[in-house]
């Protein structure tokens, strides 16, 4: 089968068999407990709390917001009382200012966004409604969705692509969402197409999810939307790779955006949340998390309220069979290793992956043997080994000159590297250093 794909990439073991056939279970604690809502953790400006300690809040009530354009408000998933506004540890290991809510277990609903607006939104109000609902890219990057949906003037959007590739190993939350609620995803995409009348919709799914492809195709009655199976290859779901596979267009090098080639890419869950926001007027207060890995007793897909402790999710899966050495927020290729389980589930928590010492890859790095495998697999066609050398000798200008800022940190190079070089770590360092330098230059 010759399905669309991109040049480069790797084939990591999928690990999806652990959870792909497990229907989503709802985890909704009915007793009183803490829910933590960090103010940052999306791309853009952090929010400021709009509640105070001691305030009563309702489930679905806005608790934080900001005037900044690139940001999105936060909502409480539970009803209860604000216990504290203080720094709490988040999955990155950092301490972030958070609103801590002591729930009452009743989930008393707050007025919906429709109630506040006074009517069901018109297409011209969709983007505003999406911002109001606190929508960010729910694949993990958490880029505010309303910013994506507000392309610069003059850019005509031709394709709205629902990224259902789910190329990250182990994760199956998007797969389950498509199987359980195909109509809502299609409806969500139709709402976006109303914003961009010239665009066609594409639901792009990797071919290792035949059930989802079948269900989505059967439920799609809209001639402007097509379901497109893609070849299974990591990182098929990377925005630029997806656009190439679907439309044959290359998004120009940074700082160009998908809108420059007339594309908008939305995550599956994001599209579903768009439906929820516009149809029901409900903000983002829940998500599906794939709790998996060989250390987890009973891997599951759980629908959980945001703000719940990751430890509760693990407990709901029967705990650990073996003490994990690594617990990752997200998938194994791009996820972030966590310091502690006592961190809240946030919008971008697509998975919790617990690896035992047998499956976690912990090896000392050795010298680069110039095998060129990294060059072969880099989906951005960079030369990872040169970039690595440049960063290690602190030559950030060279890093930039060799296109380092285009790195998407997919990890294909490090996955392949026979010398186990910590390549992604170098690029993160390089990109951060270049960005810091640019900020400094801009500040003068």
């Amino acid at each position, binding site marked *: 089968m010759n399905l669309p794909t991109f040049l480069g990439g790797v084939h*990591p073991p999928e690990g999806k068999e652990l959870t792909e056939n497990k229907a989503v279970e709802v985890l909704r604690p009915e007793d009183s407990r803490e829910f933590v809502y960090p103010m940052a953790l999306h791309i853009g400006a952090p929010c400021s709390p709009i509640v105070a300690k001691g305030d009563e809040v309702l489930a679905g009530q806005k608790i934080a917001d900001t005037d900044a354009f690139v940001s999105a408000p936060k909502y409480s998933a539970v009803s209860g009382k604000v216990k504290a506004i203080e720094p709490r540890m988040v999955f990155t290991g950092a301490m972030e200012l958070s609103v801590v809510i002591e729930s009452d277990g009743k989930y008393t609903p707050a007025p919906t966004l429709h109630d506040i607006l006074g009517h069901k939104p018109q297409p011209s109000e969709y983007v505003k409604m999406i911002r109001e609902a606190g929508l960010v890219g729910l694949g993990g990057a958490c880029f505010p969705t309303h910013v994506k949906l507000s392309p610069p003037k003059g850019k005509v959007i031709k394709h709205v692509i629902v990224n259902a590739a789910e190329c990250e*190993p182990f994760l199956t939350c998007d797969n389950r969402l498509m199987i359980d609620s195909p109509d809502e995803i299609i409806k969500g995409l139709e709402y976006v197409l109303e914003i961009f009348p010239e665009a066609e919709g594409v639901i792009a799914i990797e071919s290792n999810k035949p059930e989802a492809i079948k269900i989505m195709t059967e439920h799609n009655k809209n001639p402007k939307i097509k379901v497109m199976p893609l070849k299974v290859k990591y990182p098929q779901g990377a925005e*630029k790779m997806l656009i*190439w596979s679907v439309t044959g267009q*290359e998004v*120009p*090098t940074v700082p*160009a955006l998908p809108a420059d080639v007339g594309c908008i890419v939305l995550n599956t869950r994001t599209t579903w949340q768009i439906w929820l926001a516009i149809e029901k007027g409900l903000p983002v207060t829940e998500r599906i998390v794939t709790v998996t890995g060989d250390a987890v007793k009973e891997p599951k897909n759980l629908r959980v309220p945001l703000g719940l402790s990751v430890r509760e999710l693990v407990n709901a899966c029967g705990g*650990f069979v073996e*003490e*994990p*050495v*690594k*617990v*990752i927020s997200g998938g*194994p*290729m791009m996820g*972030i*290793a*966590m*310091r502690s*389980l006592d961190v809240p589930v946030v919008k971008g928590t697509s998975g919790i*992956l617990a*690896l035992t010492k047998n499956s*976690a*890859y*912990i*090896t000392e790095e*050795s*010298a*680069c*043997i*110039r*095998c*060129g495998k990294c*060059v072969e697999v880099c*989906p*951005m*066609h*960079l*030369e990872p080994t*040169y970039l690595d050398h440049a960063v290690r000798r602190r030559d950030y*200008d060279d890093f930039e*000159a*060799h*296109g380092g800022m*285009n790195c998407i*940190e997919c*990890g294909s190079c*490090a*996955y*392949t*590297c*026979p*010398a*186990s070089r*910590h390549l*992604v*770590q170098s690029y*993160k360092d390089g990109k951060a250093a270049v960005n810091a330098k640019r900020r400094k230059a801009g500040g003068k």
Partner: protein
Amino acid sequence: MDTKLIVSTSPHIHSDFSTRNIMLTVIYALIPAGIMGVYFLGLRSLAVIAACIIACVASEWAWQKINNRKSTINDLSAVVTGLLLAYNLPPTIPLWMAVCGSVFAVIVVKQFYGGIGCNIVNPALAARAMMLISWPTAMTTWTLNGISGATPLATMKAGAITGIPSFWHLLTGNMGGCIGETSSILLILGGAYLVWEDVIPARIPLTYIFTTAILAALFGHGGNTFPVFEMLTGGLLLGAIFMATDYTTSPMSETGQYIYAVGCGLLTALIRTWGGYPEGVSYSILIMNVAVPLIDRYTSPRVFGAPKNNFFRRTGAKS
């Protein structure tokens, strides 16, 4: 949970590719041709192979011990170097010469430049070149079944056609030559295994071998013998499959690898036809090894999304 969790950068999983696995695969691929070499050229060959491997591993271990560096003998690269050097030596070579060559390969060519991944030329080939200059007679004495004789290429060089072994002997390796270079069929099988295991790209050996054959035919080398003889004789197969594909000393981009392989083929054909030596594989690869940084610099792949207008995307200049 009492145990501390490990925090590190993604990715958190890894392919089963490792330097050691790669070297092991290369060793497996080399073994059949070596067995055939020992079978046709005598047990003495085995002693040469053993001497080279032991000397290479020992010098790498000793060098790193003296310099307080972490030993890298476990990555098996020194074994590969020893094996390749032995395959490039005549079976009659005095063992002390083989040991000298091995020490030179590992210490001077590899470790002086920083160890694995940093050498600028192939260690085994550089050692062979050094030995060829130092002990020209010992390095070019070929015996088969106890009888000294010229290699097929030397015969071709001399303009004779009658002394060339049959096609069958060329394939199996029943002819005079270095220990590991004679058994064409097993070298090709080893190469196919390496390509199958995704250790080497097929484009380097194929381009190299066919370039040599076609150009040598064009140049009228060996009185216009069938080009297939050109491919099966001398160290071409061993060099093209196992030496020219050495990661450290070959280009990383696809375009670069084609340029490099064509360069190797051109030089080999030139040396075979008009050079002072009957054989040119070693020197061709060594010369192209030195050109690799330049080739790499001019053939970096175009970054995804960068303008398509020029073939050579960057010239190495800072933007």
